């Protein structure tokens, strides 16, 4: 699946700062979308697109923390880098608790900001990838037969083919056959992959359905 170009969203009520930070991020070859207020951002940003948010803390109307809360409620994956003129500890702790990836103070050095942006984008990318993977596994799991699923649970529990066969009251050969199908359907090359996938899909540890 092809990855979309990420967007760095900027929200700051100060137009001078907004333009300058925007340019700095553009100089890195990144795509920038700048908004003068949290409300405009909420109205205008693409919720499915990958990217990150560089957010001013103190703004009239909806402030930075309020916007973070609002995105959290939406279930947004957008990593947030806070940029603030006067960062007090209480505010930064609160921001970090709610999942901010970074908390930078103005004036911000380019390397620090860009590194944070890159980290955030990477995290976002990873998030998106994990998401996609989870979807993939769920799809594969859905395609399994009841017997194949029982076999997978046995594998995930670390049992040998013989033990699984005995448990299910069938021959070891049959289990090997199911196992082959499982490997193909789940896209695993070796048994270890299968275990990992089963773990990731939550098979074995928690009752799956």
């Amino acid at each position: 699946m092809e990855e979309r170009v990420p967007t760095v969203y900027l929200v700051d009520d100060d137009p001078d700062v907004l333009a300058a930070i925007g340019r700095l991020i553009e100089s890195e070859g990144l795509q920038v979308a700048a908004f003068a207020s949290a409300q405009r951002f909420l109205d205008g940003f693409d919720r499915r697109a990958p990217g990150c948010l560089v957010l001013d803390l103190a703004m009239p109307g909806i402030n930075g923390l309020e916007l973070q809360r609002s995105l959290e409620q939406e279930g947004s994956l957008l990593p947030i880098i806070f940029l603030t003129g006067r960062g007090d500890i209480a505010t930064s702790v609160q921001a970090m608790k709610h999942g901010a990836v970074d908390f930078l103070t103005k004036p911000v050095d380019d390397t620090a900001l860009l590194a944070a942006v890159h980290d955030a984008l990477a995290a976002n990318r990873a998030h998106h990838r994990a998401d996609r993977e989870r979807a993939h596994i769920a799809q594969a799991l859905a395609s399994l037969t009841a017997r194949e699923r029982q076999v997978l649970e046995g594998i995930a529990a670390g049992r040998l083919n013989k033990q699984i066969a005995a448990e299910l009251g069938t021959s070891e050969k049959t289990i090997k056959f199911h196992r082959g199908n499982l490997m193909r359907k789940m896209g695993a090359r070796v048994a270890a992959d299968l275990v990992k996938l089963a773990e990731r899909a939550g098979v074995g540890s928690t009752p799956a359905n």
Partner: protein
Amino acid sequence: MGNWVEIVWIGMCAVSLALGAIHLFVWFKQRTGYFHLLFFALAVSATAFGAFELALMHEWAPERYADILRWAHVPLALWVLSMIGFVHFYFGAGRSWLAWAASGFRLAGLALNFVTGVNVNFLAVSSLEPVAFWGGAVVAGPVGVVNPWAIVPQIGNLILLMFVIDAAITLWRRGGSDARRRAVVVGGSLVACVAAVAGFAALITIGLVHAPTIVMPGVFVIVLAMGYELGWDMIAAAQLATQLRASEQRFRAVVEAVPSAILVIDDRGLISLANQQAETVFGYPRAELIRQPVELLIPERFHGRLSAWRTEWATGPHAQSIAPGRDRVGRRKNGVEFPAEVMLSPLQTEKGPFILASVVDVTERRRLEQATARQRDELAHLSRVALLGELSGSLAHELNQPLTAILSNAQAAQRFLAQSPPRTDKLAEILTDIVKANHRAGSVIVRLRSMLRKEESKRLVLNLNHVVEESLRLLRSDLLARHVTVQSDLAERLPSIEGDRNQLQQVLLNLLMNGCDAMEGQATDRCLTVRTQQTGQATVEVTVSDRGLGIPVADLDRVFDPFVTTKAQGLGLGLTICRSIVEAHGGRLWATNPAQGGATLHCELPATPG
């Protein structure tokens, strides 16, 4: 014969003569008092007439009697004329035409007296018969043919009677105890005596009564009445003079006692009176002040204005409009100038218009005022520094924003240039933005420095809206951090004010921050309303309203007292200093609790004229 008639008549003559002499003497001393001369004529003619009448009473030869009677008419006519003149001119009573008519008939009678008969009373005196008075006195009474022309002086007497009745009524109507007394004394004696004398003379003349001519007592009573009046007036004048002297002494005592320099200046600008304090203030002994031009006490550069002003004052009678001057300058003998407060009041006197100038040397007061102002400025400065300390976060933010823009712009430019090939298309706008941000930071620093600088208060023409906007800008980040929104409602056309920008901004910042503090405890509705408006012909007002709990009514004025504070931190001097700043600007600062809740601080300032 040696009887009492002789004594009485001689006595009357003597008294009349004495009275006349007294008033002649008075007239000599006081040439303007023509009444005294008139009275002298009255009294002397009465004396002369009395002498003639006494002679008549002792004359037993008819021809001689007729002659004496003829000549007796001369002083009598003079007496009548003097009396008419006296009544008319001195008392201002009696109609003119009656006066003229009575005088005319009397003069006509006098003329007829010499051209008809033996006198105007008789064509001929045939005999003289002894008439017995009371007490055994015997005098001559004439018997003869009545002169028909006697009607003329008798008509004259009738008119004279009308004249004196009219005069008495006039005096009575004039009211006032003094005029009433005069009406009774003068009018009563005049009417009674003229009626008696004229009637008696008529009766004798037409022969109904056989009696000697006894006119003198009436004439004498009138002389006495007039003399009494004139004397009374002289006494009153003397009393008045005494009072005047006393009052002048009091005036002088008061003038000497007042703590300000008093100068009385005549219409030519010469000093005619100066008090002790004037000597002290100006350093001249009194002798060097009197009859000197007032310019002596005023620095040369004001002389032009003074003379222009004096011309204006002299030509127009707007004496009341002489405005007191707070900021006048005086000059002492040693040439040292001093600030003076001058009060001028016009004095209208018989000798022409004068100006009473009261001059207070306000050097010491000015010095105190300046010291107070300096202290106020210093306190304001200290409080401003403290205020800026409280605002340091906000101010740092205001500086931080442009610095952030500058840094990021510059680093973006470096990165664009580091690319290969270097990107230069953005450089122009980046540099423009850097310059802009730099100016922005610069202006914050300038503002800050000006508020921190300790300097004397400087009055400039300001727009109150600008002061409000600038204060809001300085507070912007603080307001954001405290979640306070501001609604500003600034009047578009606001008259300008004159004031110290830093101090007024300090007031605004204080009011805004107090408003924020008032809403600190509440989770929502943190909103400040700032409003400017013109409140009067010459006043503008800025109000700051919060939506807090309001100020307890008992504290509405107390919040301006020093060390009254509701805050854990803070000295409670903020509003005290604000009020002293506003009052030093000629304005008012007060608090109200509006009906919709919260508190409103009102700051009213005078608008610059024009």
